[in-house]
């Protein structure tokens, strides 16, 4: 199982991976590239990663989640490469017999991604500048070439 891709994310595929007749709730989280009021003309984000460790750490994170919610099934993909504004960079699908478990498991995984999965992003802006983003989601003070 690979947890990274350079292709457009397919929710249908992820939902199919976790679907089961005994599951009454499926929670989907999509993280998308944005250009909101706090960004400065972002056109895309370039995602890079320590890919071997991403796979290993996703394995550990999902094992942790399965330990907490053994009844749930969880699928996750992180997209790498240059992703335009509006497209998804990560998709998490958690299915469980009841909705509460599905929501909890899905939230656990995305929060774990933010803390543990070695992925980095560089904003590509309309003025041609490129800026690394810090973990709080804000650009670093210095441009990337400094």
């Amino acid at each position, binding site marked *: 199982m690979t947890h990274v891709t350079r292709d457009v994310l397919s929710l249908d595929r992820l939902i199919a991976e976790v679907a089961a007749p005994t599951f009454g709730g499926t929670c989907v989280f999509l*993280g998308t590239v944005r250009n909101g009021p706090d960004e400065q003309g972002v056109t895309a984000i370039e*995602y*890079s*990663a*320590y890919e*071997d*460790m991403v796979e*290993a*750490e996703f394995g550990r994170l999902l094992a942790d989640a399965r330990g907490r919610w053994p009844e749930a099934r969880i699928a996750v993909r*992180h997209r790498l490469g240059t992703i335009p504004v509006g497209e998804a*960079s*990560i998709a998490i699908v958690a299915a469980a017999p009841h909705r509460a478990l599905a929501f909890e498991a899905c939230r656990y995984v*995305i929060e774990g*991604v*933010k*803390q*543990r*999965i*070695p*992925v*980095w*992003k*560089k904003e590509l802006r309309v003025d041609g500048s490129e800026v*690394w*983003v*810090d*973990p709080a*989601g804000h650009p*670093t003070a210095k441009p*990337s*070439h400094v």
Partner: protein
Amino acid sequence: MPATVRVRFFARYAELMGRSEATVSLSLPATVGDVVRRLREDFPGAGALPERPLAAVNMKHVKLDARVQDGDEVALLPPIAGG
């Protein structure tokens, strides 16, 4: 006892170092912090790295006081920004 570790750099750290990896030799026992100190001594770009970066050894997050062994892969990780 001498040891050689492979050190990998990613994202902004790779830009600061001007390279994506380096080889560091040092005497055992040694820690990840020792590897960082050696890098800062031996590589000009390493002075711009934080003194206490996030780190991994053999693809597991570790603290800087974690021991390294001959043949380990040490990674210095910029603040994680996935998702």
